[in-house]
């Protein structure tokens, strides 16, 4: 749109016929330059395209960012600001005590450490086991392979709410309840939370490795294991990263199953995660700040609740911010794709 406007602006400024004749090739070139500037050419990106990209990204990004901004703004508000209807987004004073309160009542450092262990250990196991299983499905032909793939997908489709109770009874029989083993053992056997999805991701990635590459490795004397480590794993680096992130986030966010299997239903176990702490936050807050009563408590809790929520998702955000640079680098390093 912008380029057309500019062309229209140029029209009335047209000089005399003589000058026009002289300038004609130049003008055409000019128009071409404007078009190039706006739409971009094959190897450069035009301004218009950039505006479109940024516009779309910012608009959609705002939808995602909105709750986060809401949380940040509410978590920094005093009790008076929360009750005052004239204060909408920007708090009158930066009130950090919400965070301090949330920090102490959640027992943050200890809970954080336990969350890292509970989310991290099954994630690592998940990554390794799902990679192996996915590689097996992608590379080897064995009887009933398609049937097994079908069962895998079907087990993904069954609502997880149904399998919860039988699993609980099974873990009870195995005596692995109320300890981290209840997460580690299924993850080791490729049955972790949403492990089917990770297996499918690895399956699709490993299938894309050209057969020629694997045969070349075979000729050069690589065994099955070495082929997997040297060729399949490096070329699936983005998949590994994605699986790691998903697995970590889902284990991190899983409050219900964690409470059921690891922390114990009664809540008197050694283990505790940030999400479980967040869930039981109302109770723990009323114990710490018992002096607050009546109407004010609901809205006062809101600021601190938001602060606690922020604290509980902040570690994952930071981790992702560090890891997302790997997205580009890992691909550059391997450089074996396509045929």
């Amino acid at each position: 749109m912008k380029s057309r406007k500019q062309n229209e602006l140029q029209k009335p400024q047209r000089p005399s016929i003589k000058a026009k004749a002289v300038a004609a090739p130049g003008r055409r070139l000019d128009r071409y330059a404007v078009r190039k500037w706006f739409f971009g050419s094959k190897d450069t990106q035009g301004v218009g395209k950039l505006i479109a990209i940024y516009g779309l990204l910012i608009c959609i990004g705002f939808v995602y960012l909105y709750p986060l901004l809401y949380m940040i703004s509410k978590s920094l508000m005093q009790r008076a600001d929360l009750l005052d209807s004239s204060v909408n987004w920007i708090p009158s004073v930066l009130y950090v005590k919400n965070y301090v309160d949330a920090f102490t009542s959640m027992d943050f450092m200890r809970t954080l450490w336990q969350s890292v262990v509970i989310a991290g250990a099954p994630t690592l196991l998940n990554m390794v086991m799902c990679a192996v299983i996915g590689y097996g499905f992608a590379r080897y032909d064995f009887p009933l392979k398609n049937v097994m793939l079908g069962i895998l997908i079907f087990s993904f489709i069954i609502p997880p709410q149904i399998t919860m109770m039988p699993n609980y009874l099974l873990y009870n029989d195995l005596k692995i309840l109320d300890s981290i083993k209840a997460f580690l053992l299924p993850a080791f056997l490729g049955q972790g939370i949403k492990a089917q999805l990770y297996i499918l991701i690895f399956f699709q990635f490993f299938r894309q490795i050209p057969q020629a590459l694997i045969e070349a490795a075979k000729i050069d004397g690589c065994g099955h294991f070495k082929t997997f480590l040297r060729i399949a794993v490096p070329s699936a680096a983005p998949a590994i990263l994605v699986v790691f992130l998903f697995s970590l986030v889902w284990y991190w966010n899983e409050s219900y199953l964690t409470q059921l299997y690891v922390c114990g239903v009664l809540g008197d176990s050694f283990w505790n995660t940030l999400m479980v702490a967040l869930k039981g936050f109302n109770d723990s807050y009323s114990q710490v700040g018992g002096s607050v009563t009546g109407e004010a408590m609901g809205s006062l809790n809101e600021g601190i609740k938001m602060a606690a929520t922020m604290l509980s998702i902040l570690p994952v955000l930071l981790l992702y911010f560090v890891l997302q640079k790997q997205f580009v680098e890992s691909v550059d390093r391997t450089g074996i794709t396509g045929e």
Partner: protein
Amino acid sequence: MAVPIIVVFALIIALLLNAKIKGKGVFRLIFFLPVIIASGPVMAQLVSQGAGSIPAMNTSMIESMIGFLPGFIVSAIMGLFENIVMYLWYSGVQILIFLAAVQKIDNSLYEAAKMDGGSTWECFWKITLPTIKPMTLLNVVYTIVYLSNNEQNTIIETIKDAMFGTTGSKGYGYASAMAWLYAVIVTLLVIVFAAALALKKDVYAKKAKKYRKEQKKQERLIRKIEKRGEQYEKQKAKRTAKAAKAVH
């Protein structure tokens, strides 16, 4: 209807995030937010606070704009606009999967295509899309499963009620039966979508398989001939031996 929308939308966002832009890290961080927030108790809290939807979404204006179309199209489009925020929230995982897939495409492919005079549009259809086809299938399957097994889904709620509900609860067996039936129906849906996206096998793999098959056939033929030859030789030897005996 939500499935194609979510998948296509995720693909577009992944391509945009893969473009050469400044502040990539920040944008990627923002688009990772739904993965964190949409799972877990944070989302439920936010929805209860009313932060899950855009406050200033003027739907009536759009409705009057497209009013000349037949009724069912209008209602479909309006449904899209009303739920678009929810669709956006559900597409976080798919964006990341697509991003990983797009990054694995070799850059030299694009360079070669550009040398041969292909435009960006053509590059997208001829290189990007075929390469990430398996990932598209995966995303479609995931989207169906996620949408059908979501906590907000009414059928799941019914099943949960039947399982844990105290009043008028029909017990665990009844709930399990419902869940099985539901799973079978979803499986049929997945099969339909997967068949629509049916994967063509790699050309190389196809050729290799064909070659191996032919090789095996030939080997079998050779073995057969050899066997026959051996038998013939044996018979010949026997015959000669007999003849020799007879002569003696």
